[in-house]
Structures are given as structure tokens and as C-alpha cells.
């Protein structure tokens, strides 16, 4: 380690890299090679996020096609077969190829920086995990060309993202399209589990001196909780998929009702994975909010221990609520009551979090830069999504609306309104750190407001056809059921959102070349990643940081009034 001289006020000895970079930029092939063989958590993090953004666009195009198809009654923009493939691929893509890689990318890039480490605990495993995820996604999309199905060559999976039995049995899904779904998710699941193991080991074993668990930035804390949830939730899916493979390839009878198997078990196994998955996706959104909201409110996060406790609480409760996706299956009334109540209990820790964020903002000097705008929208929309969630947790209400567009609207409110907004806000917040350039604030604000308008047009109005009885995954519908206008508005909103996402992507691209130079700490923030240069050198910190409170940079900026005095 660099031995520091007598530290001056707020100085980290030998912490900034001024090595002259004489190396000429390599050829394209050299650069490519350096990215393929890298074990650097930052490069891998960037690759994860870029990979996710590409699939955000791909999944978005699928969503647009679905919306064109549903925009008018009795439309035939897509054939029924293609429509089935598109909604299956849209769901699978957004959850497994966009959501999870994006959040793993965030954790990968940020956790070591935030805890003052040079890299992840297992850098090679990290590279391996990324490539597993990447190859899994490519394999899934290869099915569009290579998957042989009922209708000859080129058949993507078309059994819905939850792939209910017995539709997935050999008799009903001939060919290999369903197997593509299974094996590619198996492969990417291995990658995700590897990443989760890595994050936990990193946080437990690689913290810099003085970074006790109660001084850990909340982002890192929630990364640990997310990873623990991944370890609990992905394996059941893997197990169920192995069973499905055994059924389809070896002639097993797990889900074969004729031989005494049970299609219901697939639902249980799938949702034992499927519900915690929602929290795997939303935890990183919370994590981003936990970092961004305090910085832009110029106040420390309110109720740090309560935040940690609530996160752990949500993780635990979320493992015991899966059958609220199965109220219409016909459970005992005890089962219904248990899963309705356990689902409602999730509202308590979630409420604690929302109040903590509000209390952080309360009385603060709030600056509505683009990241903070995204966070504000996130807070509001997440609250709305939670409220419809509680409505759906009431079993009789659920009987009425199960598998209707109300449910679709509800979970898109969570996935887009909360998670996508928070992650986009996070990208805006950390973009200067990653690239060394500021995003264009004007373009960013335009993109944000466009997204807000498009989002509310789409998903607010999507609740209504659901209440009017429109089922999900439906190919088309007759005119005059009262669904027409709503569906048209929803479809138009989808295009507004697409424009917003394109604007966002354009902003990322343009600012990379033309953005204002950011400097190390453009937001005047408090966590360790802002103590190194932007973009950080491959070793992150020249000298191992030493921290004395939850906001190490605050302590350095305000030595007359440091946080550690209050611990």
C-alpha cells in the first residue's frame, strides 16, 4: 500500500492516480480481446448493463408489436403463433435478460467501489458468471432461427414466461422451442447464482478498514439481501426446469397428470421462484433510491437500521407468499387466508421504506436533477403499484381479476414504474462516474417527462380493460366490448415510452463523446466511489481507504462536523 504522508485536511494519502498514460489506444481487436478476457469488476459491470440495455430495446420492440396487435379489435398485425412467441419472449427477456443482468451489473460495478475494495472476491468467477448469463441470452434468441417447433424451422418459446404444465409436455409442445426456454434459463441462472455468491463474499470479506456492517452503504447492504434472495429463489426454478427436462427428454412423470404427476406442482415450484424474483428485481431499485435520495436531499438517509431491517424483513416474508399467484387454482380457505395475509404483511416493511425515503426528503434542500426526478417518480409509482398489489392479495378480489389486464397493469407498474425508473435514475446518477462525462441534463429531463407521460398513458389506462374483464395473453378481441378505446390509448402510450427510452439511449451515446467533463465527484456525494477518479482506474483505489462513519466523504469534506461523532 502507498504509505501516506501526514494527512492534510480531508486528504487521503496517495489516493489519486496520475500515472502518465503513454499507451496508444489499441486496435479494435486488441480492445475487444481485453474486454473478453477481463476480470475487472467495472468492465464486467459495464458489459452487464450494456447487455441489459440491448435486451431492453429487443424486449421493447416485442412489446410494441404486441401493442400494435392489441391496439385495435380484430387486428391481424401478428399471426397468433407469432403473438404467442412474442409475449413469451417479451416476459422472459425483460425478467431474465434485462432486469437481472442490469441489477447484477449495478452490483458488480458499485459494490467493490463502495466498500473500498480493489475487485470482487472472486474475479474469475465474476467473468464466468457474466459469460454464462450472456450465452444463456444468446441461446434463447437463437431459438428464433434454430428452434424447431410445431411449425417447422425457427420457433421461439411460446408457452408464456411461466411455462405452465401441462402445456410444456411433449404432446402439447412438440419440437424444441420449450427446451430452448428451459436450457437457456438454466445457463443464465447458473451465471446469476455465481454473481450472487460473489457479491455476498465481496461484502463480507473485502470491506476496507473501518467499514463495519453498520457503516456499509445501503446499496451494498441491499445487494447482499438481493444476492441472498437469488440464492434462495433461482435454485427452485433450476430444480423445476431440471424436472421439466427429465419429463421431456427422459420420459419422467413429474408434471404428467396421466401417470400420477401433478401440473399443480409446477405452479408451486415456479412461483416459489417467481415471487421472490419480484423482490430480487425491486431490491436494487430500493438500493439506488437509498443512495440517490439522500445526496439530492442533502441529508443523511433517515433510519438506516430500520432500512436494513425492513430489507431483510421483505426478503424473509417474500419467501412465504408465492401462492398468491394461485388463488384461482382452488386452495383450501386456510391456504387462501394464509397467503392473502402473508402478502399483506409485505406492505409493512415496504411502508417503512417509503416513509424513510419521505423523511429523508422532508426538510432537505432537494435538487431535482434528472436522477432525483426519476427517484421521485419511483416513489410515487411504487406506492401505487403496492396499493394495487394489496388489492390483488385479497383472495376474492383476485378471483375476479386473476389473469386479467388489471394484473398485467399491476406488475408493469412495479417493473416499469418502480424498477425501470429507479434503474434509469441510477444510470443517470453513476454515468459520470463510469464514463467521466456528465449526461446532458436537458435531454435527460425531456426523456424523463416523456417517459412519465408514456408510462402513465400506458399503465394507468391498462387497469381499466382489466377491470372490464379483458384477459391477459389474449390474441385479439371483438369490437364493442368497451375495451377498444382503452387499448388504443395504451398502445399509443407504449410508443411514447419507446420514444423516451430511445432518447435516453441517445443521451447515453451522445454524452459519452460530447458530455461535459464530470470530475471525481459531480454530485457532492458521500460514498467511497466518489473518492476516486472518473472513470476509476482498474485498481479503484491506490491506497486502501479507511472509513470512520457511514458517510466517509462527508467526514473529509466537513472535518469540523464529522459523522463519526454521532455513532
Amino acid at each position, binding site marked *: 500500500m502507498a504509505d501516506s504522508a501526514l494527512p492534510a485536511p480531508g486528504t487521503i494519502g496517495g489516493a489519486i492516480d496520475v500515472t502518465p498514460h503513454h499507451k496508444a489506444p489499441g486496435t479494435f481487436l486488441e480492445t475487444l480481446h481485453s474486454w473478453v478476457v477481463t476480470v475487472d469488476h467495472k468492465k464486467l459491470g459495464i458489459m452487464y448493463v450494456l447487455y441489459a440495455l440491448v435486451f431492453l430495446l429487443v424486449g421493447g420492440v416485442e412489446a410494441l408489436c404486441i401493442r400494435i396487435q392489441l391496439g385495435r379489435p380484430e387486428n391481424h398485425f401478428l399471426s397468433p403463433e407469432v403473438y404467442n412467441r412474442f409475449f413469451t419472449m417479451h416476459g422472459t427477456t425483460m425478467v431474465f435478460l434485462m432486469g437481472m443482468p442490469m441489477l447484477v451489473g449495478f452490483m458488480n460495478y458499485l459494490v467493490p467501489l463502495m466498500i473500498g475494495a480493489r475487485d470482487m472476491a472472486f474475479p474469475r468467477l465474476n467473468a464466468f458468471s457474466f459469460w454464462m448469463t450472456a450465452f444463456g441470452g444468446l441461446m434463447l434468441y437463437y431459438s428464433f432461427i434454430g428452434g424447431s417447433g410445431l411449425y417447422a424451422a425457427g420457433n421461439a418459446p411460446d408457452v408464456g414466461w411461466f411455462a405452465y404444465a401441462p402445456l410444456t409436455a411433449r404432446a402439447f409442445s412438440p419440437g424444441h422451442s420449450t427446451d430452448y426456454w428451459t436450457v437457456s434459463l438454466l445457463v443464465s441462472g447458473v451465471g446469476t447464482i455465481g454473481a450472487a455468491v460473489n457479491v455476498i463474499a465481496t461484502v463480507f470479506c473485502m470491506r476496507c478498514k473501518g467499514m463495519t456492517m453498520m457503516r456499509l452503504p445501503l446499496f451494498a447492504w441491499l445487494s447482499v439481501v438481493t444476492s441472498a434472495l437469488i440464492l434462495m429463489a433461482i435454485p427452485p426454478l433450476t430444480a423445476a426446469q431440471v424436472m421439466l427436462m427429465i419429463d421431456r427428454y427422459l420420459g419422467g412423470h413429474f408434471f404428467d397428470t396421466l401417470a400420477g404427476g401433478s401440473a399443480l406442482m409446477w405452479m408451486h415450484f415456479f412461483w416459489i421462484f417467481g415471487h421472490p424474483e419480484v423482490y430480487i428485481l425491486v431490491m436494487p431499485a430500493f438500493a439506488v433510491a437509498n443512495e440517490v435520495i439522500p445526496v439530492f436531499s442533502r441529508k443523511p438517509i433517515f433510519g438506516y*437500521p430500520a432500512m436494513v431491517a425492513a430489507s431483510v424483513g421483505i426478503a424473509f416474508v417474500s419467501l412465504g407468499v408465492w401462492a398468491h399467484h394461485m388463488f384461482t387454482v382452488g386452495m383450501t380457505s386456510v391456504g387462501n387466508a394464509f397467503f392473502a395475509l402473508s402478502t399483506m404483511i409485505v406492505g409493512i416493511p415496504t411502508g417503512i421504506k417509503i416513509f424513510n425515503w419521505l423523511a429523508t426528503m422532508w426538510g432537505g434542500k432537494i435538487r431535482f436533477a434528472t436522477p432525483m426526478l426519476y427517484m421521485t417518480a419511483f416513489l410515487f409509482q411504487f406506492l401505487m403499484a403496492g396499493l394495487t398489489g394489496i388489492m390483488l392479495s385479497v383472495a376474492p378480489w383476485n378471483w375476479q381479476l386473476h389473469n386479467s389486464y388489471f394484473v398485467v397493469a399491476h406488475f408493469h407498474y412495479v417493473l416499469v414504474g418502480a424498477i425501470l425508473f429507479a434503474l434509469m435514475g441510477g444510470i443517470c446518477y453513476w454515468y459520470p462516474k463510469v464514463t467521466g462525462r456528465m449526461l446532458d441534463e436537458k435531454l435527460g429531463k425531456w426523456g424523463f417527462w416523456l417517459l412519465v407521460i408514456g408510462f402513465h398513458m400506458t399503465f394507468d389506462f391498462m387497469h381499466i380493460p382489466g377491470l372490464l374483464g379483458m384477459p391477459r395473453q389474449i390474441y385479439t378481441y371483438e369490437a364493442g366490448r368497451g375495451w377498444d378505446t382503452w387499448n388504443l390509448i395504451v398502445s399509443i402510450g407504449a410508443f411514447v415510452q419507446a420514444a423516451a427510452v430511445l432518447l435516453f439511449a441517445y443521451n447515453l451515446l451522445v454524452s459519452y463523446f460530447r458530455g461535459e467533463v464530470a470530475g471525481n465527484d459531480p454530485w457532492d456525494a458521500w460514498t467511497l466511489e466518489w473518492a476516486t477518479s472518473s472513470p476509476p482506474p482498474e*485498481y479503484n483505489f491506490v491506497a486502501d481507504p479507511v472509513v470512520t462513519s457511514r458517510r466517509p466523504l462527508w467526514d473529509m469534506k466537513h472535518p469540523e462536523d464529522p459523522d463519526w461523532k454521532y455513532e
Partner: protein
Amino acid sequence: MSEQENHGHHSDSIHLPAPTTWPVVLAFGLALIFLGIVTNPAISILGGVLTVFGTVGWFRDVLPHERHVDVEVEVMDLNIRSTRERVARMELDKPGRYAPTETYPIVSGIKGGIAGGFAMIIPAMIYGLIAQHSIWYPINLMGGAGIANWTDTSTANIAAFHWQGLIAASVIHAITCLLVGLLYGAMLPMLPRHPIVLGGILAPVLWTGLLHAVMNIVNPVFDQRIQWGWFLISQVTFGLVAGWVVAHQSRISANRNLPLAVRMGIESPGLMQHDHDEKSEDRH
């Protein structure tokens, strides 16, 4: 927003894990094994070969020692400063501006709820005796709401004794009274002047009106059997007794001017200072 100055120049060298091809080879091999399952076994075999290569290569990377590269760096001291040099503290309003300085403890609401719950039994029993000649009638009516299979039943059946009805009614009654008491206690600071008038009469009337309006939709069968006049009398009895009990509890000083975190005993930087306890602070 902030400026950072560098000085204290010197140089150093850093160990970093060396870049390696083997993870991507191993991942590709494993993926090919799986791809072979859905395409052609030959691809699985190729994947298997790559997997073996990847595994062996990986082992040789980390055994007996993990491969490192040394990065030579020249470094300077990093000086971190904020342009926001002023730290502002949140000035709290004078106590009593938004809320009373004294209030009843929440537990007084629960006590009121318990007392009201017992008092409420009396008009309900009287109603049962006068209108239906059975004290079991109101009990079964309440308990029946909790027993799902009591959909269509005769008045005589409701007036008879059912132990399930009694248990269900007692549980529902006790829980509801406790919860309403808790709610009452929590709301008390909002109705400081006349707790008995507001909580004892106005709230039950509003509550009864609300129920009367929606019960027809929620449970029409149940709605037909409720005598709303008697219902109102029971509710008002509850409210009056609960209010009276609360009004006779001793007041405590409201400490809601302290931040919640302080009241919860949570230590949180920036929220409290050791030298002035009753102040929350904020920094900009």
C-alpha cells in the same frame, strides 16, 4: 459541486488479478453442452471438450498461486472538499404550533376500546331480548359474518345457541374493539378539544352511516338483518364509554417534536447532537 486537489506525488505498484481466457472458455463450453441438448449431440461433445480445457486452464491460473499482474502507478494525495461549506441545521418550530404539547398515551385508547367493548354488549343484548327474544341473536349475527357457510338461514336458527357463533363473535368483537381502540388512541392528538363529542358521537354516527351505505353491496343478506337504529345505539355506547375512559386517563407530554428516529431510539448521524438534545439538524 466539489473540488479535489492533488499533491504529494510518489509512485507505487499494485497487484491485480491477471486477465484470463479460461472463464469465458468454460462458460462457452458449458453453454454448448446445453445447446447440444436442443440441437445436435456433436455440439455437446465439443462443449464437453471446451469445458475440460476451461476447467484445467482455470485451475492452473489459481494453483498453486493466483496469477497477478503488477500495475505501476504514480500517485498523489487526494484532497476532498465540498463547495458547500456551510452546514445548516434544521430549526424546529416552537412546541405546540402544530400539535398540542400534551396528549393522551396511545394505550389509553386501547383501554377505552376494551371498556367500550364491554359496554357495547349491553345494548346489543337488550336489542336481542326485545326484538328477537334471544340474547344469542346478535351474537350469531356477528359470528355468522365469520363463518362462511352461514349463507342462507332462518331467524330461528340465528336466535338459537351455537358455540361456533359464540367463539367467532367473541374473537371478532375483541379484535375489532382492540383495533378501534388503538386507532382511537392514535387519532387522539388530532381531536384534542372534545374527545367525547368527536370520538364518542360524531365518529360512530359517521361510521354507522358509512356501513349502512355500503353493507347493501358488501353483504345484502346481512344488511337485511341489521336494525340500524339499534346498531347506532351500540356504536354510540362504545364511543361514549371509550371516550369517557380516555378522558379520565392522565396526559403525557407529547414528544413528537423530536425526530422519529430519536423517539424510536435509533441512532442516526445528522439527526441528533449530543449537546442539544431536542434539536434535529440538517446539513447542506
